[in-house]
């Protein structure tokens, strides 16, 4: 297990190096070429940016300087909003996005697991059809529909912005519904497979009720892939947040990322891309670790040093 962990960390490191080089390559669009096609920057800001990223130096110096900047977290000022440093932008908007994402994660997990358990009890394959339909709806359709129906037409919730709990409902639901449906379907299929296993029949012959069989036995064994899915789920929520924050005008990191991409604000793009990569990679690693932990075989292999 330690070996597995080391290998995963190495892979994460190499992937981060990949992102590092990719974003480094991006910064080379500053000097001129892309500029002439996009907005024109005042001479002073242009020079300041070139100086900050040391673009006049040889390549090796640039690379090490870039690494130093990342480690310190100093990305300078935004190109499009020169009054703000990038650190300020990120520190202001990251908590909002993190909170939105966390709420959406909780709702998605609860919805997914809850509906899957109910559907298994009632044995309705209709559940699979419903989840397929939900998963096929792109996040902007869901967001726009929710906003139009619940906020504009029926006026149950505020249309946009962030602050009160009423404003939280629609964005969180939009973000949570598709990943929740996917997770629910994953769990449902696993539960049905577990209930066909020999031990499920044996437990039934012991005289346990359907609920006990489901919750105490089948669920535990079906959990592993569901927990492993939590990592990609976070990635899905992060991607969805770009859209949701735009639709509901939430001043979060996703909205800034979309803005920076549309206006080609390279320093900001780089900073947010690196940050998202780090967060998402960590989440995937943690969820894989948790999924392994749940399985007693692997847990024992770790503690007793016995190869499985």
């Amino acid at each position: 297990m330690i070996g597995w962990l080391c290998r995963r960390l190495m892979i994460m490191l190499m992937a981060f190096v990949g992102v590092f080089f990719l974003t480094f390559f991006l910064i080379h669009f500053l000097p001129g070429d892309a500029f002439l096609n996009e907005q024109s920057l005042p001479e002073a800001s242009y020079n300041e940016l070139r100086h900050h990223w040391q673009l006049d130096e040889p390549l090796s110096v640039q690379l090490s300087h870039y690494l130093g900047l990342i480690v310190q977290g100093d990305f300078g000022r935004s190109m499009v909003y020169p009054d703000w440093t990038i650190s300020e932008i990120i520190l202001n908007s990251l908590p909002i996005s993190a909170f939105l994402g966390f709420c959406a994660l909780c709702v998605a997990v609860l919805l997914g697991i809850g509906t899957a358990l109910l559907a298994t009890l009632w044995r309705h394959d209709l559940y699979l059809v419903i989840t397929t339909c939900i998963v096929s709806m792109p996040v902007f359709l869901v967001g726009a529909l929710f906003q139009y129906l619940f906020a504009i037409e029926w006026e149950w919730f505020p249309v946009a912005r962030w602050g009160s709990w009423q404003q939280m409902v629609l964005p969180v639901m939009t973000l949570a519904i598709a990943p929740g449906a996917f997770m629910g379907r994953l769990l449902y299929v696993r539960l049905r497979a577990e209930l066909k296993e020999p031990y499920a029949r044996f437990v039934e012959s012991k005289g346990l009720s359907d609920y006990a069989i489901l919750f105490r036995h089948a669920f535990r064994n079906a959990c592993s892939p569901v927990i492993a899915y939590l990592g990609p789920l976070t990635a899905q929520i992060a991607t969805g947040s770009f859209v949701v924050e735009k639709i509901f005008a939430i001043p979060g990191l996703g909205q800034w990322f979309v803005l920076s991409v549309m206006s080609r604000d390279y320093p900001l793009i780089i900073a947010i891309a690196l940050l998202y990569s780090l967060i998402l990679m960590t989440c995937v690693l943690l969820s894989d670790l948790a999924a392994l932990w749940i399985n007693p075989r692997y847990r024992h292999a770790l503690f007793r040093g016995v190869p499985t």
Partner: protein
Amino acid sequence: MIPLLELESLSLSLGSKILLNRLTFSLFPRQRCAIVGASGSGKSLTLATIGRLLPRDFPWKPEGSIRWNGEELLNMPKERFRKIRQGGIATVLQESMSCLNPSMKIGKQIAEVAQKICPTEWLEAVGLPRNLQYCFPHELSGGMKQRVVLAIALASKPRLLLADEITSALDTHSQEQIIDLIDRVCSDHNIALLLVTHDFSVARALCADTLVMYQGAIVEQAATSKILDLPQHFHSRQLVEAIFL
């Protein structure tokens, strides 16, 4: 004396195919009966029908009657049947190796059969060490898992044990041990036994009576020793001859 278990013209069909053909026999308390036959003769299906363990999407159309202590089992409501499972009929199926939940400790799996059960008591009854209750199934050998499954079946204090091919997947030494164990346990706790096996030697070791099944019907029903000496039906003859090969 009312029979513990009584089958009367039990038939099971799937579409036009007849799987079980008018089975009729009775089992009295403490009686041990083996059901012997080749693969596909319907033995496991009979046990599964009695214990209501057919797969859920099976087009379940049994006809006839199964009576437990005089009570009709076939149309019994689920809740009532659960009570019978908890104190009357215990089942040990094929594939006992995978009958245990891989992510739950052995002690807990034994304990959940009923309230106030002491797992160590039943582990000792099947000849296993006490500290096994803290282990997971993957740490046990095949023979040990078989005993645990037996312990779980016994912990509900049944009056009838339905056992399906419990020795098939074991090596000869473990087979003998399990046969001795079941013999001792059934005598000690006054449990009737309905044992399904394709091996006549196991039937001879454990059961006084035998039913021979062929293509879904009971073709011979007599004391085990009598069938071994003088098999009447041609299929019984085939099975008896197989022992001496």
